[in-house]
């Protein structure tokens, strides 16, 4: 692991222009394993200034300065096992040759694709309110008098429910106890339920399968 991280070192954070670093370079911590290093005063000061220049680019919440972003392979899963899982758990709603055909071309980044399918599709890039694939939460509301109204659910809390009808009209109802009766149809409800059932291995396998759906 090498020596201590200078970007979180109390010495360097308190150093102004080398005055705390210099004695250490000269061997004041030889007992602790930092040997004296032959360096001119000017060079040692330049080192301090360099470290400060890196420190100055550190990011919020203690995160290090931005460096080269390492290319990481998130595709560790087994695509064949992912396909078996898909056929077992997903095909009641989805199809590799239907709604998900070409998903890996639409979402070429594997991390994005994984986030997308685990979330149930709600974050599909370039989705707009009018996208054909967009699945709104809808509600059917039955008033005490028996009237039924259906529309896109716009807002709900313990006191109010508000829906937007097909013609764009908004209807808002006050909620008192169990009235009006509200049936919510949330296409993501199934996905939210599934979140509690995934093993990380299944998740990686399904992602490995979905990236084959070019």
């Amino acid at each position, binding site marked *: 692991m090498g020596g*201590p991280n200078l970007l*979180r070192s109390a010495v360097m954070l308190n150093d102004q222009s080398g005055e705390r670093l210099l004695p250490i370079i000269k061997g004041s911590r030889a007992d602790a394993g930092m040997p004296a290093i032959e360096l001119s005063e000017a060079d040692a000061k330049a080192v301090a200034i360099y470290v400060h220049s890196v420190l100055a680019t*550190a990011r919020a919440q203690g995160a*290090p300065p931005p460096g080269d972003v390492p290319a990481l392979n998130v595709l560790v899963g087994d695509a064949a096992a992912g396909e078996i899982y898909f056929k077992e758990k997903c095909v009641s709603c989805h199809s590799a040759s239907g709604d998900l055909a070409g998903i890996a071309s639409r979402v070429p980044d594997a991390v994005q694709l994984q986030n997308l399918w685990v979330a149930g599709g709600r974050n599909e890039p370039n989705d707009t309110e009018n996208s054909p694939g967009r699945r709104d939460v809808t509600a059917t509301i039955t008033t005490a008098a028996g009237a039924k109204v259906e529309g896109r659910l716009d807002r709900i809390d*313990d006191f109010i429910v508000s829906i937007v009808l097909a013609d764009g009209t908004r209807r808002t109802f006050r909620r008192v106890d169990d009235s009006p009766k509200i049936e919510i149809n949330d296409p993501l409800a199934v996905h939210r339920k599934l979140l509690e059932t995934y093993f990380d291995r299944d998740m990686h396998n399904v992602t490995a399968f979905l990236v084959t759906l070019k």
Partner: protein
Amino acid sequence: MTTRRAVCAAVLLVSPVLLAGQTAAPQETGGVDPASLRRPLAESWPSYSGDYTGRRFSALTQVNRRTVKTLTLAWVSRVATGPGAAGRRPAGAPPIVIGGHGSEDAGVIGPATIKGSILQVDGVLYVTAPDHVWAVDARDGRELWRYYWKTRGGTHIGNRGAAIWKNYLFFETPDNYLVSIDARNGQERWNVEIADFEEQYFSTPAPIIVDNHVLVGTGNDLDMPGFLQSFDAETGKLEWKFYTVPMNPGDPGLESWPSLDAARHGGGQVWVPGVYDPDTRLYIFGTGNPTPAYTGVARRGDNLFTCSLIAVHVDTGKMAWYFQTSAHDTHDWDSAQTPILIDGAIDGRPRKLVSTASRNGYFYTLDRVTGQHIVTRRFGTATNWAKHLRFSGVVEPDLDKSATIPGTLVSPVEGGVTNWPPAAFSPNTGLFYTHEKNGFNIVYLSDPDPRGSMGLGGKTVANVGSAPNYLTAIDYKTGKVVWRHAFPSMTGTGGAGGVLATAGDLLFTGDAAGNFVAFDATNGKPLWHSRIGTITNAPQTHMIDGRQYVLAAVGDTLYAFVMY
């Protein structure tokens, strides 16, 4: 080091100027007697939790399950920030007192967000936000004076409130000063530096007064050691400093770190005020997560005493006991939740207990005299990071649930099942009340070199949905959930703000849709609400002129409710 410094009023309404070296005239009579802080919470609200127990249970009953439907708005008051406009202020404008060591432009002054407790003493509210204290008339919301601290900079994430001792307020600043000001006029008494600004400490907690001690926590995101300090309320002199991680060879807990260097960079910040038991003179508080937060490989071991409940003796700062609520956390789930002292019964025997609902989704009850473990129970319905319970009651973390390159599906999200907004306990119902958020993240290790994983760096997270979120009532004796109230939500957000419990068998808190809600404490049924916006602190209550007020903050605005 104690710095006594001159304080001057901002503008033409000049208050008397204090000369350097001169303290504000102390008045030994009047003000808040520190012994009075032991009284159970009722008419006033003189400390962070209202009293030392952390229960946030008010004895007031005027507003109760029967009457709450008539609760109505008394006043609205918005606090203004900054040093005030240059030039002449209108006659009668509240004075602004300016302190601080920073330059005029070091702080970005925007609207305040009130994220802390508000003191109510003798009809005056003392409200805080980073770099600011306001005195506000509790009867009508009128600002009486403002204290503004010119900051050197630092993280301005929030301030959890002020403390009061006699006639003097104490509060902490983001650039790490403990400032004492006269509660009567906002004039500064003294300020002392409490942590190293260059090492990126920043201070958010509300100080806690015990006798003449001012107990002060602070915070840091850059792998620095956490500590709790005690200052003399009269002089500002440091009395003791307790580190939450091993700092020297031979220190207890060092065996739970791979090296002394790792321990000394191990975090365990004291973000949030604790509770105090006068019988044992123990101050009990929670500590923050170990650092680097998401990369455990550089700090293998349990990482004591991070993510722990710790009891220290207030006179010496010596640790009496600890219990780790997360061993080797790798998700930024600090245990900086204010615990709650409960005088209860376990197996029919009266016990002095302390309970906490932790950010990691587990509920704990301990003996608060000895630290003996009594209950560990999961309350976050989706919480999935644990392997099993150790014999000691500590949860064994599943290290496979740490951040990985291909991603790990984790519940809760970074913010946790609960967080700093305080829980409450009602001795009437025997229930512990907390918000419960059950979100899921996929956590990716983005920098596999552990040296690059300082602070909260080295990972990326994607929120992928949420199981239902609740207001949750827990039996402290067993940890079993007695009832849950689900917050309907379009976006998976949960309830907002902390919880207040009252002897009127009510709970006050914010829901997920911007409503301020009163719930029936026995069953979680909503009884009253007002859509004032997302609650940003914990609601409070107090009694003035025979009227019970209920107070909540939404961003920079205070709302006071009352029954006429």
